């Protein structure tokens, strides 16, 4: 009896693994196909730019609000504790490290995953279930070139810009708290950041994390959108799945990137 049961759960487990590997393989092929079509002659730069504006319009305001408060709470805690032990002079540097290396890129990624990733999955999913993707193909238009590549590329280009923006907002918000709530000297804040931060700290998050985060959000949300089935329910499920998987992968990849870069 018990052995039989074990055998069964073993089988289920095996099948589960095979299913997951299948999905992974499909995702890799899908992403490879997108990359292969980046150089297609049919790709219109106009489509890439219009996606970039769309992503920008969608993301800059929320990124601003997010990083404003992230910068504020972080600076508040650090200033509070560090002034107690007489380390008030290095607060600008500490906030700068945290924002430029981690908080700016990561929270910008979270915002884009939630806002843009979900939007892409929903849009592509809706086009899939209402036969619009098939309609494109029936007109001899390749949806990879027409729909996927512009979204993918614009995320890769826009993510670094958003991170630069996020970093500035976060850093300035920290300065605001430091000077208003704790009567800190703004010159000291900036001087300590200028002293402690290396060039790598400034561009590492932007140039390395930015495009990679864009790549992750783009490829996952497009893949999940393109696999949508089951009508309206399926579209909702795709949006959720896209956000959840983008976030998890983003957090994991961020850890390893930080470890490698800094």
């Amino acid at each position: 009896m018990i052995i039989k049961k074990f055998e069964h759960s073993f089988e289920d487990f095996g099948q589960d693994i095979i299913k997951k590997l299948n999905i992974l393989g499909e995702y890799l092929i899908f992403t490879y196909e997108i990359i292969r079509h980046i150089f297609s002659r049919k790709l219109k730069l106009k489509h890439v730019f219009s996606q970039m504006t769309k992503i920008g319009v969608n993301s800059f305001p929320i990124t601003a609000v997010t990083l404003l408060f992230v910068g504020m709470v972080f600076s508040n805690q650090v200033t509070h504790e560090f002034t107690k032990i007489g380390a008030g002079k290095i607060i600008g540097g500490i906030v700068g490290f945290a924002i430029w290396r981690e908080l700016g890129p990561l929270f910008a990624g979270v915002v884009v995953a939630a806002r843009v990733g979900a939007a892409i999955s929903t849009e592509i999913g809706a086009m899939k279930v209402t036969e619009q993707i098939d309609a494109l193909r029936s007109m001899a238009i390749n949806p990879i070139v027409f729909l996927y590549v512009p979204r993918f590329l614009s995320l890769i280009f826009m993510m670094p810009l958003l991170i630069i923006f996020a970093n500035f907002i976060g850093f300035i918000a920290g300065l605001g708290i430091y000077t208003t709530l704790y009567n800190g000297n703004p010159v000291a804040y900036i001087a300590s950041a200028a002293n402690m931060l290396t060039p790598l700290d400034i561009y590492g998050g932007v140039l390395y994390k930015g495009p990679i985060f864009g790549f992750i959000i783009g490829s996952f949300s497009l893949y999940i959108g393109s696999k949508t089935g089951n009508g309206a329910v399926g579209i909702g499920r795709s949006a959720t799945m896209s956000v959840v998987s983008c976030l998890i992968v983003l957090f994991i990849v961020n850890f390893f990137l930080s470890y490698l870069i800094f």
Partner: protein
Amino acid sequence: MIKIKSLIKTYGDQTILKDLNIKIPKGKKTTIIGQSGCGKSTLLRLILGLEKFDEGEIWVGKDCITHLSEDDLNKVRLQFGMVFQSAALFDSMTVGENVGLVLKEHTDMTREEIKERVIEKLGLVGLNDIYDAYPANLSGGMKKRVAFARAIVNNPKVLLFDEPTTGLDPVTSTRVENLINKLTKKTNATTIVVTHQISTILNVSENIVMIHDGEAIKTEGPDKILKSKNKMVYNFVNGLIK
């Protein structure tokens, strides 16, 4: 014009089409009938190469599309105009952009030439002054007609209609049927209409094929089909449960 030989199509362990053989004559209107879920839409998708099948051959004119690559399929697809079951208009584009897209992507026509052609085709399906409208603001019947205009805009040799009258009121339905007749007469296109609406079967067909259990059954023409000698066909068109 289109020949389907021993076609087999499965989804997982479900066999949808088994040993399907159909000849679609050139320049005629063929309707494909059959119960919901028997694989009619699937057949149209296979003809367009939107999906792969398991075994058999599909010939479009002199091309066997069975083993064509996506690039070669695209050349064949440009001979087709397809109206999907759900109209499948692009939400993010205006009516004008929807209809003109295939010309913009595949011809050297100028913006003005495209616009002129689009307006001509919209006129042909009886739609004026909606060039700049978005699909979301159109009624179901209007969407269908925009989809017609989009399908005929590059003067294709083959027209495919997937349930063009399903979900429309009887009057609009008759209008759409007349429109199909008018368009095919004007263009001489080989036409396949998938439908299970009796009025459409009677008003449009010159040739009727029924799909049952994954195989094609040859039937009488529209004048005799209601009294068909084949039990399956008779039961289907008269709505009898066997």
